[in-house]
């Protein structure tokens, strides 16, 4: 999402349309410059395949459509100038359960008209793209790094070993609130009930059935299930691109390493956006 905004000259935190698996058809009622990043949902502009991770001018009446998902789960569409949605409680995100934020607090539907602020023209921006080696690869076997805790002491020792050595499968009951995973049962070593406390993005909570749930962007703020690990901030977007049936493998990480990965990610975003074509050759 941040990359999409940077490609069209916006602030990285501006709003972008999140498009999950089945994309909409959009007709532009005025010209603009767009960029699509994230999942490859076979975008087309007026019937022609549209390159991702690069900005592109669209004319009045142009039709943007999406087709078969090729990789990942969620695509991000940014438009130069930014989508005209007012921040609610400091965010332009849509919170469906609270019918809050974004476009009338709901998903877009046929017939909606979405405004965007006047932005820069393509001749002002120039062609911008993210260097190919900076583009994330979304695999159907996702590997994410995680920090132990905060409630790892609720679990049997072998549960922690199991968690880090086996793979889990993304269940159909997964959404922006949480990713339910299926796999080897994680046993607790105590029957004591946890007193509800705060949750965080990427926390992996385990209900009594022993099947982990990774808490995602629309998670509840507090919860009463113990959290065995917390996925590092830098790897949450990778997991958010996983879809039903994909496998997830967790690898232990520590805080200093997580922070250095996060900084690397920021540097890629800072330096990875270049004008024109990347200078590279393909060996074949």
């Amino acid at each position, binding site marked *: 999402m941040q990359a999409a905004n940077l490609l069209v000259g916006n602030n990285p935190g501006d709003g972008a349309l999140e498009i999950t698996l089945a994309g909409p058809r959009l007709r532009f009622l005025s010209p603009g410059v767009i960029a699509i990043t994230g999942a490859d949902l076979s975008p087309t502009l007026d019937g022609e395949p549209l390159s991702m991770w690069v900005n592109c001018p669209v004319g009045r009446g142009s039709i943007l459509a999406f087709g078969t998902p090729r990789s990942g789960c969620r695509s991000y569409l940014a438009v130069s100038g930014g989508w005209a949605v007012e921040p*609610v*409680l400091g965010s332009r995100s849509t919170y469906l*359960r*609270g019918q*809050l*934020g974004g476009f009338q607090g709901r998903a877009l539907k046929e017939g909606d008209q979405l405004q965007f602020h006047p932005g820069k023209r393509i001749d002002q921006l120039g062609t911008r793209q993210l260097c190919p080696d900076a583009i994330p690869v979304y695999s159907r076997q996702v590997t994410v790094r995680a*920090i132990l*805790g*905060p409630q790892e002491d609720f679990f049997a020792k072998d549960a922690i070993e199991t968690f880090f050595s086996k793979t889990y499968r993304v269940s159909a009951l997964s959404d922006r609130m949480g990713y339910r995973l299926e796999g080897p049962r994680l046993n607790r070593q105590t029957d004591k009930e*946890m*007193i*509800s*406390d*705060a949750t*965080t*993005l*990427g*926390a992996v909570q385990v209900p009594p059935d022993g099947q982990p749930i990774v808490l995602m962007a629309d998670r*509840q*703020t*507090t*919860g009463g299930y113990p*959290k065995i690990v*917390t*996925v*590092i*901030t830098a790897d949450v977007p990778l997991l958010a691109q996983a879809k039903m049936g994909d496998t997830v493998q967790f690898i232990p990480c520590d*805080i*200093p390493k*997580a*922070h250095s990965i*996060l*900084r690397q990610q*920021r540097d890629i975003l800072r330096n990875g956006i270049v004008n024109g074509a990347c200078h590279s050759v393909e060996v074949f």
Partner: protein
Amino acid sequence: MASQMDFMNDQSKNASLIPMGDSCWLVQFQQEISLDINRKVQALAEVLERAQPPWVREIVPTYCSLAVYYDPFQIEAYEVECYLWAEINLLNDAMMASSVIWEIPVLYGGEWGPDLVSLALRVGLKPEEVIAIHSHSTYHVYMLGFVPGFCYLGKVSPKIAVPRLDNPRKSVPAGSVGIAGLQTGIYPIAAPGGWQIIGRTPFGLYDPKREKAVFVKAGDGVRFKPIDLATYHMVSQKVKMGWQPTPIEGTKSNGNSGGHQGRFIDYGARPGALWTPSLRNARSRRHGHLFLASSKSSGRQ
């Protein structure tokens, strides 16, 4: 000097700092639901709210923990850890979170409180007695969570404490007032839930369009005032027109009855009254202690 060290040791002994991922420290006090421990959580939250360190993204106080979310681009994890330890060790009564008391009007029973009759039967009381007991105490807001603006209030008199429903409802209407064990709470928006619903308030506890979407905060006091249908409709109408509740001031609670001896909100007198931020004064703190005394004397445990 020795006593100061004792105090520090005392605080350190009862708290621990645990990382929750790479951008949050979880301060855990003794893991039990008690007013004293919750007040420590509130006090630490108050300290951070007053200091507003630029690296703090958000703090979430709960029953006996405080989550402190920080910006890892601005500060190292160990620096946050040191800062928090210093503040934990320096916590004292003077820093206890200031609080105000809110009076929430509730229409009990009927379609607004579908579980009132069965709850009364279960505990062997008349519905009116359940209402009297429920609206008798001033409750402490232990935490906010679950959905925007949901406040966890306690503790409910054991006389009317009932467990959650076996089968949670798919949707509980906004404003519903429920009981779950020794907790009582208000559903700010329609949400699935298993609390036993005894009434409904016309107050909009959560409104994203308002300057303060949620006006009740953790550490505040909440009382319930039984109202009739006519009042319900009147307040409901006022809320729709943008009326916002103000905390009650000058409330008195004399420890043995805990009854409503203070002023009630005058629903008619303040159309469009501005919501007033918390009363950060000694008086409200004192009331905090008074209400502590009254909840202790209400026959609990």
